[in-house]
């Protein structure tokens, strides 16, 4: 009955549109709770028994449209339901939570759940295309000039990117006559000439790299996730959850091609480059939302590193990092929204004293920062430890440490908003009417700490992977973290504050044509890499 998770929210959304004159917020939250309970049921079912398959319209396995819930996807649907419930509760008192907004969120949830469950290639294409439309409407929901421009770039770039996927699917269908991913994975080793699969692989990987926003295809992400006027809920959803659909599809597609084409080293290098680019760009930003958006680019790079490194421990570390990133990044984006509402600016140089004016939000931001930088006992540290544990190579360790140092440095810059004193006169300060969302952000903040303290347990519960974390190595990492904090402070005060170069670098942006050209270039690069190296 997996399809209920996809059909349910859409039907509920249509119902809310029918009764759009009334207040539908409580109904939407109720639907969300039901969805969460059902996702939890599926999750427990999968963990206790085994992978659940759903063959639509009774057609035989391999030919029908298939929904599959296995260890990975069941965690993701649970995560989706939890994050969406939190977003809706956060938005409950906000004036942008209209019926239309709730409808779009419900549809987006159904689409994301569908992307996690479906194993049919064409189905994935349809879901991606519709999700692009919904997301771009959500970005533009305030109809401001900048938001419409960013939304248009997001929309066109993603539609064109998905066309690559459709083309790749056509080539796969031409070779194998199949659309179901598990069946294709079995059929691919039988293909006589593996070279005929290089082109579809390159086409599909172009789309997935665009969706995961790796180098050089990340230019759309800061525009879409950091749009000034988009509601914080939208930014948090995009950055915390929606970007993970790309990562998830990357896992699935590489598993599908594994028997014929396996190029983890390529994506390992791309992951490193993404992560390093992400933090260099983040260092020069002054807009709190833009810092968070570029931080997402950097963290996605880290996840890619873990996924492609090879050892099991790094893979599950990266999976846990996906969950942790979803928690701390959505908490940080929501907090940024609250801060923007109260201070009326997103400029990091003008916001001071969040800790004093909004203690709950301040604590949540602090926990989020500690989580993302990997402070001991917070969830980021557990996943980063596991990722680092996967490799002994000195170069990889060095790279990971550089990434972490970069992360700490730009979050030190971010954390300047917490301290100091709000120097505005009292009359310009707006009312803080919304206690509910502040409490919710704080709850998310504590979740970061809880899932970190019980890190190995949460990995075991979520993925059934037993990881030993609290060893001498982990505490050694803690000491390294302290040293990095000192080094980061030094770098920030010594170099970043004064240097104009970073400021210049961070304002480099590709035009629309530039984005498409880099997409084509990436496609040609992957294709030629396959033809030359394999």
């Amino acid at each position, binding site marked *: 009955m997996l399809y209920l998770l996809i059909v349910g929210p859409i039907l509920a959304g249509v119902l809310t549109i029918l009764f759009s004159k009334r207040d539908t917020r409580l109904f939407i939250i109720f639907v969300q709770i039901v969805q969460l309970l059902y996702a939890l049921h599926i999750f427990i079912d999968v963990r206790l028994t085994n992978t659940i398959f759903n063959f639509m319209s009774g057609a035989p396995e391999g030919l029908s449209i298939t929904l599959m819930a296995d260890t990975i996807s069941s965690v993701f649907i649970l995560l989706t339901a939890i994050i969406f419930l939190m977003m809706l509760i956060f938005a409950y008192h906000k004036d942008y939570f209209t019926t239309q907004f709730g409808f779009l969120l419900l549809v987006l949830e159904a689409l994301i759940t569908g992307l996690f469950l479906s194993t049919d290639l064409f189905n994935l294409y349809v879901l991606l295309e519709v999700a692009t439309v919904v997301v771009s409407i959500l970005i533009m929901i305030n109809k401001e000039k900048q938001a419409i*421009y960013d939304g*248009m770039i997001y929309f066109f770039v993603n*539609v064109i990117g998905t066309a690559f996927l459709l*083309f790749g699917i*056509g080539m796969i*269908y*031409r070779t194998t006559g199949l659309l179901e991913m598990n069946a294709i994975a079995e059929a691919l080793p039988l293909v006589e000439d593996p070279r005929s699969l290089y082109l579809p692989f390159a086409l599909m990987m172009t789309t997935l790299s665009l969706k995961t926003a790796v180098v050089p295809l990340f230019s759309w992400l800061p525009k879409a996730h950091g749009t000034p006027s988009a509601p914080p809920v939208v930014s948090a959803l995009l950055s915390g959850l929606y970007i993970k659909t790309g990562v998830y599809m990357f896992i699935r597609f590489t598993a599908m091609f594994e028997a014929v084409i396996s190029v983890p080293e390529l994506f390992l290098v791309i992951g490193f480059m993404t992560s390093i680019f992400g933090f260099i760009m983040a260092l020069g930003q002054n807009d709190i939302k833009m810092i968070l958006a570029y931080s997402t680019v950097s963290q996605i790079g880290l996840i890619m590193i873990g996924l492609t490194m090879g050892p099991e421990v790094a893979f599950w570390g990266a999976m846990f990092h996906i969950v942790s990133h979803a928690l701390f990044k959505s908490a940080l984006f929501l907090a940024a929204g609250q801060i923007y509402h109260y201070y009326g600016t997103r400029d990091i140089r003008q916001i001071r004293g969040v800790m004093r004016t909004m203690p709950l939000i301040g604590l949540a931001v602090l926990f989020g920062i500690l989580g993302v930088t990997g402070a001991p006992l917070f969830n980021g540290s557990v996943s980063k430890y596991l990722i680092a544990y996967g490799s002994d190579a000195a170069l990889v360790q060095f790279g990971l440490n550089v990434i972490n140092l970069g992360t700490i440095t730009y979050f030190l810059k971010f954390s300047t908003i917490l301290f100091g004193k709000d120097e505005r006169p009292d009359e310009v300060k707006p009312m803080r009417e919304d206690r509910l969302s502040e409490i919710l952000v704080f709850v998310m903040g504590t979740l970061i700490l809880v899932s970190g303290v019980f890190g190995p347990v949460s990995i075991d519960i979520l993925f059934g992977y037993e990881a030993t974390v609290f060893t001498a190595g982990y505490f050694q990492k803690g000491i390294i973290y302290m040293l990095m904090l000192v080094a980061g402070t030094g770098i920030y005060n010594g170099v970043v504050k004064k240097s104009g170069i970073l400021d210049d670098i961070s304002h480099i942006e590709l*035009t*629309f044509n530039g984005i498409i050209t880099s997409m084509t270039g990436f496609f040609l690069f992957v294709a030629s890499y396959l033809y030359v190296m394999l």
Partner: protein
Amino acid sequence: MDFITGEIVGILLFFIGLYGLMTKKSIIKTIMSMSIMESGIYLFYVTINYVPGSVPPIGQQGDAPFVDPVPSALMITAIVIGIGVTAIGLTMFMHYKQKHGITHWSRNRN
């Protein structure tokens, strides 16, 4: 002229569309290039694995083999999506042009 098959023409159309997207700064031309690109994909799909002389899979099977109906079925869906996407793209563009008078992709965030 054996090499002019639907598949080859489809691939060519795809890359012609891509060229347009890479070089044209006008938003309306972007939408047109996108449509050309998608038409290339439709043509590629409906001609894959076509055996000359095959018949549609309707009624009794004679000597001729049946055509694979799946690509055509997929393309009906894809065409509908394509129309929707083009319509949404045009709507965004019209709104943007009427409100702010901008017709080209600009270099900088404003």
